[in-house]
């Protein structure tokens, strides 16, 4: 299957909207997604697998008497299949119940230029090139520590495109690239197995460092051997990038969604203008961040992505909106309607959730800690209470810090608390910003977290 070009994609979407209107839809919106991904995978210490995945499809959302119907198909080469899909969405809308809050799709607005989101070099990479990248990552891991076993990982290169057309005149096409490499490892020594240690590097342009990923994944596993338990008490905790992403994804990132706020599912409801975090915390949701993993010209409804202040010096500024929740409050969408490909209707998600960095190096941040933990990853973060922000998770891998130095890895320590207390207790941030999914942040130091050790 070939890549559909901009004009072909737009015309396919326009046609779907036309069919919907012709058959009686009050409004219609077509979304087309294409994804071409080549991967070379590492399994149990060797490169053993390669794949080429092509996914293309059309999702159509229509409105009839304020009731919304949606249908999708991945057979976009056939006019009959597209028509059938559009008719299905209409049938669904007519069978459904009207939504009194429905106030129409979005209107056309100019799109900003985004930077660092497309690199033709990535499209031209051959599977042979990806084997070389995976191989250099694997070699680097093996050279770093012989007790380490690379269990899985690999390299992937993707070209993605998206188009939105709606009956209010919205019409957009955007394409981008992503390249990533990752490695998961464990270390074994005299019967002891470490938790899985993971590193990765994902970028929109061809600027990744597989050797660093390999070395780092191996180094972490080696450093996780001979773990000890810690006492139960409140202590300082440094959340490294992955741990911070896991902690916030299921709590704060939900609490700022307008949908959760409007439906009384957010502990931040009514707190705009109030202090919800310590003064050192400033966060923007930046859909236009240069090279951001979630940077696109427009969101899943064709609304321009933008930079929205969320928390400035600890004070809550804004929630994030899609078109529906924004119109419900008589305001404008913040461009946060997210689509998981063509298979679903949009839902609200953060774009690039960008923390302002601090000034200290990670070593200096560790140096500030008298007694505490450095936590790389959390287990069980998805079992947090999304409404209240309460969490009860395992910190793994994690290391004990005493008097400004890492002294040993930690086994089986649980962290419990409330994410909104954690935000108020952030005392410092490092300067080592990284992109992990939608989070763009450095390490953060939290003054007091309950650690349950034994």
């Amino acid at each position, binding site marked *: *299957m070939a890549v559909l070009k901009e004009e072909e994609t737009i015309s396919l979407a326009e046609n779907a909207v036309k069919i919907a209107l012709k058959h009686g839809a009050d409004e219609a919106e077509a979304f087309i997604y294409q994804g071409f991904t*080549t991967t*070379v995978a590492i399994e*149990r*210490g*060797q*490169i*053993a*697998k*390669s*794949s*080429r*995945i*092509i996914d293309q499809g059309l999702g159509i959302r229509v409105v009839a008497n304020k009731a*919304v*119907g*949606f*249908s*999708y198909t*991945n*057979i976009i080469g056939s006019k009959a299949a597209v028509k059938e*899909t559009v008719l299905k969405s209409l049938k*669904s809308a007519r*069978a459904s119940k009207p*939504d009194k*809050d429905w106030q129409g799709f979005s209107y056309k607005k100019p799109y900003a230029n985004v930077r660092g989101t497309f690199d033709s070099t990535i499209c031209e990479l*051959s*599977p042979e090139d990806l*084997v070389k990248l995976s191989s250099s990552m694997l070699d680097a891991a093996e050279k770093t520590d012989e007790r380490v076993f690379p269990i*899985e990982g690999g390299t992937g290169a993707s070209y993605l495109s998206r188009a939105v057309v709606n009956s209010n005149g919205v019409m957009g096409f955007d394409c981008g690239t992503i390249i990533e490499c990752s490695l998961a490892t*464990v270390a074994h020594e005299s019967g002891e*197995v470490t*938790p*899985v240690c993971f590193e990765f590097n994902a970028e929109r342009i061809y600027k990744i460092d597989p050797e660093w990923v390999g070395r780092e994944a191996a180094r972490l596993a080696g450093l996780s051997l001979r773990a000890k338990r810690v006492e*139960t008490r409140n202590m300082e905790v440094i959340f490294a990038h992955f741990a911070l992403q896991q902690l916030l994804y299921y709590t704060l990132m939900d609490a700022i969604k307008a949908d959760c706020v409007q*439906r*009384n*599912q957010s502990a931040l409801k009514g707190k705009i203008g109030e202090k919800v975090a310590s003064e050192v915390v400033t966060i923007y949701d930046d859909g236009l961040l240069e090279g951001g993993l979630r940077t696109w010209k427009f969101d899943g409804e064709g609304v321009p992505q933008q930079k929205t202040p969320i928390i400035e010096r600890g004070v809550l500024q804004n929630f994030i909106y899609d078109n529906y929740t924004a119109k419900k409050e008589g305001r404008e969408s913040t461009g946060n309607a997210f689509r998981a490909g063509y*298979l*679903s*209707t949009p839902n609200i998600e953060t774009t690039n959730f960008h923390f302002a960095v601090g000034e200290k190096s990670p070593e200096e941040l560790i140096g500030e800690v008298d007694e505490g933990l450095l936590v790389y990853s959390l*287990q*069980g973060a998805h*079992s*947090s*209470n999304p*409404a*209240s922000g309460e*969490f*009860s998770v*395992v910190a793994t891998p994690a290391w004990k810090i005493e008097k400004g130095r890492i002294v040993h890895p930690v086994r*089986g320590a*649980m962290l*419990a*608390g*409330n994410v909104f*207390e954690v935000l108020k207790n952030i005392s410092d941030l490092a300067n080592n910003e990284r992109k992990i999914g939608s989070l763009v942040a450095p390490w953060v130091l939290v003054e007091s977290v*309950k650690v*349950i050790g*034994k």
Partner: protein
Amino acid sequence: MKDTLTKVVNAAVDQFGAEYVEIRVQKLFKTMLTIKEEMVEAAKEGIENGAAIRVLVNGAWGFASSCSLDVKTLVDVVSEACRMAKVASQKLKNPIKLVESKAFEDSVSANPKKDPSKIPIEDKIRITSTIAETMLGYDKRVKSCTVDYLDLAGTNYFMNNEGAYIEQDKLYVWSRILVTAKEGEVFTFSREEVGSTSGYEVFDIEAPEIVGERAAKRAIEQLKAKTPKGGTFPVVLGPNVVGVFVHEAFGHLAEADLTLSGSVLMGKLGKKVASDVVTIYDDGTIEGAFGSFKYDDEGVPAQKTLLVKDGVVVGLMHNRETAQKFNAKPTGNARAEDFRVEPIIRMRNTFLEPKDHSFEELIEGIKFGYYFKSFRGGQANLDGTFQVGIQEGYEIVKGEVGEPVRNASISGNTLETLYKVDAVGKDFELWPGRCGKGQTAFVCDGGPHIRVKEVLVGGGA
């Protein structure tokens, strides 16, 4: 379909040098609904047709997928898969081999009493709305609810170059119910899931009102709950928590790909890892259960696999590749979420076998501990560290169930904890759920009530 697939399989072997080739075609139709409070967010329907082709060339895997099902495209796709495998084989140290497996020719049809694809969408809206209305009407402190509904019906076609050809109907009906309650500054949250491979009749077995009331009641009762003390305590786990514990804490470690990756079960086959009262199965043959099917995505029949017998590890869950490495028989655990991905080792219906204790006997000797009845997520690590979040729990005080606690979780090392299981109940429940391992799989987990002498309980702040 058979002719098309035969041509593709022959091309792989005759023209492109495949040692092994399998092609999996999916033709599926899905209906999805999301109800938020009393509103239908969108009624959704979709078609997903596609083919997945996996080959072994020079001992390495190549994989490619396609949305188009015509012969010419599929021959191109199989050629691409073979090229990918050849590239991957450049640095291969240990060529991949597959264990022998009988090639079946079979046709498996779903025989639902109520075929979801024949039920009008209006009826699906009615049932999901009933659940939502029941929850909203249960108590004014119920603030919001979301009810998701999915049904999926269609056929999978499987062929490999060893003579297997299987046409197998797929049928799933699933619903997830989320409800939140609020009183003052206290927020609570409760979840229920319904899932079946038998048909739409799953909503006749347990009425939507009952499911809705159970979810809402839990959210309301948790409002007055306190946070648990952190530390090590004796606990009694309900079947719902036992299920997720067995699945997360033990099951994943016994997936042979993860065992080979160095899970704590590596080298433990035939060895004792749990107390005598622990017997664990992974069973793909339970009729209508959410994790059941007749053939897996390598054409191997699903079976009832004994993993732990009286505390001793006796089996692992395999695909054909890992079975070859362990010199074992394949167990029918290779599953792929859809045509976009390769089959990997997944659980089916995983459970702990019941024994002889009544619930009263389990709690009577506990001076202070916790009764954890229902879970909210769980996760395991290869070193055996597990975590299970709890959405419904109570104190046990002097042998009696006491006040509710909220936002608890338990953690520990699987093998240490399995040794501390000192009594197993005689009841049994199986709960539907979804398991994530890069791909999503529909599963069930369950068991009876059990008592664990001590486990680490993560308390509130």
